[in-house]
């Protein structure tokens, strides 16, 4: 892998976010810092399962486009975006974003920006199963507030 390239993955099966973050960190030894965000299905909310649906021709290309915008905005040594699609259960990882940078501040801002935009703009449709019944989730106002911070 070109150390300067972004690594963007849309996965239909579960993954190990800590192992992926470890491999990413090892691959960027010239970076002083790596910021990672791991999002997982919350346990204890009464949600039995969560399903993300995507649309092949659009979802991954838009994630790659987001990665390009992040790279253009901050000086990074590397960027990793891994997102699950399909059915997940409490405790399962949903997303990993990791940014490696020479300067800590760039890595924090890049990971934060990428997460805000993945949450509000990425092409996923979500439904949750509770008490045995599936229900589609509408967009949250909070996600749009998060994204507005970036101007």
């Amino acid at each position, binding site marked *: 892998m070109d150390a300067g390239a972004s690594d963007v993955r849309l996965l239909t099966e579960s993954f190990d976010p800590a192992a992926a973050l470890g491999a990413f960190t090892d691959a960027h030894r010239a970076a002083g810092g790596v910021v990672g965000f791991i999002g997982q299905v919350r346990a204890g909310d009464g949600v039995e399962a969560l399903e993300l649906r995507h649309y092949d021709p659009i979802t991954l290309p838009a994630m790659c486009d987001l990665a390009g915008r992040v790279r253009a905005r901050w000086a990074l040594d590397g960027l990793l975006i891994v997102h699950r699609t399909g059915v997940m259960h409490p405790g399962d990882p949903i*997303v990993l974003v990791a940014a490696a940078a020479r300067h800590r501040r760039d890595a924090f801002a890049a990971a934060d920006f990428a997460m805000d935009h993945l949450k509000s703009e990425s092409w996923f*449709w979500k439904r949750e199963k509770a008490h045995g019944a599936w229900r589609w989730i509408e967009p949250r106002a909070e996600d749009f507030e998060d994204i507005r911070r970036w101007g």
Partner: protein
Amino acid sequence: MPLKLVFLGRLEDVAGAPDREVAGADSIEGVLAALEPELAAALREPRIRLAVNGVLLAGGDAPALSHGDEIAFLPPVSGG
């Protein structure tokens, strides 16, 4: 000249399936006119985006359709 319709998110529940093959039509309006009225109404909601063969349409686009085209109906995304 069949077309493939793809229904994302809650539109899948309205359509009863994630996708459907329909007889050909020259335009998206022609496709919608041939569907059951409840589904057509859901697909016509202003917040529904459309993509033809993976390309998002801008508001006001009314592309001519060809054999085998895939038309996707995309409700607001609910986030990753």
